[in-house]
């Protein structure tokens, strides 16, 4: 049972406020902002309570999405609902940002009105909602930076007509009446998040992959879609299929709309996608990567004669040479030295397009590599002036963490063999399959 739903910008501006049950006054909004901004470090912010009113909030797109409730409801339901609401609004508005929420407030009120009645969630399925939602989205212009960074993402310079720009999937699903109308597109994304811990001696201490297949459908009507996965795809440790290298996951779960009658024999998922984005399949793989982790790092830390700290890092990318990595951020955390101690950082990087800076608030050095081809090796030497450096503190330079994005690559090796729509759509329908691996947490201890 939800009393109110409201959306606040990160600065506390009211963007959307809807009261479903009239139980709590609208001063709850200000109260919430006051509470959330005065939280101390060890207080978890997700659920807060003030005078019998529970505030549950999530942060997405730089906004606070808050639901309040008086009854003791299920936290999973409320959090999932808020997540679903953000996804719905993303579907309808194209992207999630303060601007798009401001521009589409009428649409959001309409969605909220249909989704929740008297605090009870009615439906969040786009199939049903599309009959009720009448307002058209005003699409906020995507940031130009976004465009730039995506040129490389799909190698658009070489295969311009075969790939869609990644903004293609960030348009509202309802804009069929607009100028982009009639574009029957369907996107199938395989997204994996990898989290790795590599010990100081180079031993892989933990490796997890969480993956999902997401379908984003712009077709107003689509009767059936068949997604074929690798034939070698196997679930669990015992099962082995096919003759090629097995693609193995530990656990696997499917959206309830997916029919699995051909899954066991042919690894085919059948579903009727509804408009908008949905997660069709989720899978996990623990501790047993089929390939070596994508990066290796060799480091040495010394103190030179002038009392400076020398950090020498050599990073190697173990991917096949064709692949390349984007937006690699490298954060050797140096948590031991407080900000005031740093006086300067000098750096020697192996190529000019990289950059490195000292981030005092995180006590870290931030090394950014825009593009990193597979098989290559990069190195950097950081010199830090730290007054009062002792040999003990030298030992305790924190771990290095990498964040990156690997386009067109899945660590498990999961591939989509084919994507068929039946019956064949009249007119030009476009099907896109995209793969990406993100780093959830990639830590290398020194």
């Amino acid at each position, binding site marked *: 049972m939800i009393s109110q739903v409201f959306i606040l910008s990160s600065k506390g501006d009211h963007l959307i406020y809807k009261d479903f049950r009239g139980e709590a006054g609208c001063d709850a909004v200000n109260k919430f902002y006051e509470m959330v901004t005065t939280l101390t470090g060890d207080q978890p912010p997700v659920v807060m309570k003030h005078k019998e009113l529970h505030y549950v909030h999530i942060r997405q797109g730089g906004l606070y999405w808050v639901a309040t409730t008086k009854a003791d409801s299920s936290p999973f339901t409320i959090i999932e609902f808020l997540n679903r609401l953000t996804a719905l609004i993303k579907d309808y508005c194209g992207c999630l940002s303060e601007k798009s929420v401001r521009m589409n407030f009428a649409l959001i009120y309409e969605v909220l009105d249909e989704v929740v009645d008297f605090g009870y969630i*009615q439906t969040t399925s786009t199939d049903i909602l599309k009959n009720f939602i009448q307002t058209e989205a005003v699409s906020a212009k995507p940031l130009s930076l976004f465009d730039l960074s995506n040129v490389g993402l799909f190698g658009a310079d070489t295969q311009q007509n075969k790939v869609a720009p990644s903004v293609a999937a960030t348009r509202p699903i309802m804009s069929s009446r607009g100028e982009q109308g009639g574009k029957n597109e369907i996107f199938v994304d395989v997204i994996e998040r990898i989290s790795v811990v590599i010990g100081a001696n180079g031993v892989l*201490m933990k490796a997890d992959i969480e993956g999902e297949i997401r379908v984003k459908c712009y077709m107003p009507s689509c009767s059936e879609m068949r997604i074929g996965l690798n034939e070698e795809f196997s679930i669990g440790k015992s099962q082995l299929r096919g003759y090629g290298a097995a693609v193995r996951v530990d656990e696997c779960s499917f959206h309830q709309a997916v029919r699995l009658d051909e899954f066991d024999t042919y690894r085919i998922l059948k579903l009727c996608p509804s408009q908008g984005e949905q997660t069709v399949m989720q899978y*996990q793989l623990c501790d047993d990567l089929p390939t070596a982790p994508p990066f290796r790092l060799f480091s040495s830390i010394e103190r030179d004669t002038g009392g400076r700290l020398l950090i020498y890092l050599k990073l190697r990318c173990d991917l096949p040479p064709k692949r390349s990595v984007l937006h690699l951020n490298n954060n050797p955390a140096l948590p031991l030295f407080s900000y005031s101690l740093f006086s300067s950082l000098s750096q020697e990087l192996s190529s000019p397009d990289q950059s490195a800076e000292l981030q005092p608030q995180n006590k870290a050095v931030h090394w950014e590599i825009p593009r990193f081809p597979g098989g290559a090796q990069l190195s950097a030497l950081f010199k830090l002036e730290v007054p009062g450096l002792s040999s003990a503190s030298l030992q305790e330079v924190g771990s290095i963490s990498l964040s990156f994005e690997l386009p067109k690559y899945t660590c498990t090796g999961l591939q989509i063999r084919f994507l068929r729509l039946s019956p064949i759509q009249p007119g030009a329908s476009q099907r896109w399959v995209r793969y990406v691996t993100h780093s959830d947490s990639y830590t290398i201890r020194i």
Partner: protein
Amino acid sequence: MPYLGGEETVRELRRALSNPHIQTDHLRYRNTIHRVIRLMSQGVDVSGLFSEMVKACATGDIVQKKLVYVFLCSYASVNPELSLLVINTLRKDCSDPNPMVRSLALRNMCNLRLPGLCEYVEQPLTAGLKDKAACVRRVAVLGWAKIHALLPNTEIDAAVVNELYGLLRDPDPVVMVNCLRALEEILEEEGGVAINKPIAHHLLNRLKECDVWGQSEVLSVLQRYRPRSEDELFDILSLLDPALLSHHVPIMAATLRLFLSLCSMLPAVCVSALERARGPLLAAAGSSSRELRYAALCHIQLLLRSEPGLMGEHYKRFYCGYAEPPYIKQSKIQVLVELVNDDNVAVVLDELKGYCTDVNTETSQAAINAIGSIGRSYDDRCLGILTGLLELKQEHITSAVLQTLRDLVWVSPQYGDAVCSALEKWEDQLQDTQGRGALLWLLGVYGDRLSGAPYILEDFIDGVRSEVSAEVKTELLTATLRVFLSRPAETQDMMGRLLQHCIEEELDMCVRDQALLYYRLLHCGIEDVRRVLQCGRRSDLSLGPLIGRPPEPISQWASIFNTLEPLMLGASSAGNSDPSTLTPYTLTSHSEPMTSDPHLMTPKLKDPDLTAPACSGQCLSLSSTLSPEEFERLWLQTEKGEFLEAYVMCPVPRCSPESLQVALQLVNIQTLAFTAPNKLPWKMYLYTHSSHTLTPHSSTTPPNTLILAEVLQAGGDGVKKVKEELIEDQENEREESVKEGEGGEERRGEMSGGVGGEDGGKGELLVRMRQYTGEKTTLTEFLSVLTTVLNAQHTA
């Protein structure tokens, strides 16, 4: 900028809305209304436009209608008269051929929230229940719940309730779930919708048709159903079993909760249900939504309370990611500590060691604490890590390490030597109060082995004038006195200075009192000092159960599973793991118990139950004293606050009243007055302050709440008499009632003879508690503390 426009903008909008040119132009009209709503959601008061908006409501354009309704529902309560004008349009819309228009009108009619309009709404609602379109029925069903909420005192027509029960069989699943929700609210006083066998089975069979939200709602309603036979129970369980593996977390959680409540008598089934749900829970704990991750982690902590081995082999899933927010890291650290076993202890310690140098201070402190608590049960590798951290000379790390070391040696005295060698080369300055307190405690306890101890103390004593924290000062007093016992020659002079300062110049009463106490104690002779100060300085081995918690039964937490509470507990568990609830500090440097024979304390220290309740979310304290007059005045304010009356199965304590008083003071309960032990009816007046740690961020409620209590010997008329007297007032009457009570003693004797059977020593105590602010839970927690003390006194 919401406020810039203000008056002027509203006036301009009014002009635009009443402009006939705009009214005829479809798009311009809609755009103007758009602007109104935009202002509204930015927080500008646009209620002045109400009458213009009412006019705008009569339109064929659905988008415009929806916008106007948003406006009307927000401001209807401000303009109840004008809202009457809308009703006509709404009622007309209710018979529109378009079902969307019908449902829209019906929904907003109820959303106006005007009790005066209910009479106009009932007829369309009744019609709506029979509508052809499911979307109208959905709205109509919930409409009745809205009417009930608006007019809580008027009964909803029984015919309507029957119809709602009938609609449980509606072909549309959302209508069915809405019926459940509406009936739950309408019949709240009767305990919600009646779940009998046909309804339960009907709901179970249709579960598959509902969406995620409907399913979790139905599952939570089904908790009230009790299957008639074991066969039926197992049929239901096997029907629900696949849902335990659902990748929709809300469904999985609701199913698990239903399992736990259905099988509360079958612990083995519960455990296997937990095992089934492990996969989805772990997946949720690694979900891409942080908030979901956190919720799952909090629930995993709950499960681990009864099934510590449940996640054992999956400990790597709880490694912290670099970019995770501190609150997730901290709860992951808490989980990791629980998962440590012989096989993985080395790996986990390695991982935790990495977190100790986290940029976030709270996270690094949590990690250090975690290493300390692993050290209680595992080897001294932990100690190596901790002492290694001291070398980093980082203020917050050092402070956390010292506190952890103090807690560690208190429970495991065998680490004393290692701690001493780490402290041997101590030369740092600490700013943090808690850290300094811990350092002083360690110096006091190991003063005989640390060669530098007196010199560090001397630095502290030299700076005592600029010391602000009373806590550090009392700790300093105790430590100095202890070091004096082992090394009198080096310490005597500075101890004199310290005592002199504290007695003559100190403003804080606690510090001064303690200094005075030590001063007088020293007069009694060195042997007495030794006896008082070294008692309880080492831990008792019987404290083991306090540290290694035994697994709780599942029923302990099953009722809060899948509620918001575990997430709030997560907030307070940071405070719970705070060493101050467990540390020797609270026991040794207590200002009160020193006044009495220290032997009285020892039996209680051995009793682990005594301190355990104090850890469970509330802390009692004696922060301010209360005069008897004040007590009486507060006690007699019958109309305010929480009142709780409970019978406690416990005989009148046979020990001397003084020892009872001391025992209660140990748990921070102050005794105000009591009757002599063999007088009847025996009674006792108590008070204490509770500071509830569960709601740390509610700034408006006072941090301390006063709890008053009266303990009476139950049975016979005595109790009733005393109660009357309490309402009536005054001393002389009280005496009278005591006499009457004595008269009633024989009757009481008869009764206890009749009811209590052969065991004449057993009896009941009636405890009455009163509290002016705060929640009832504090009272129950207070009661549990009190009961433990009383029982302990009886057995002692």
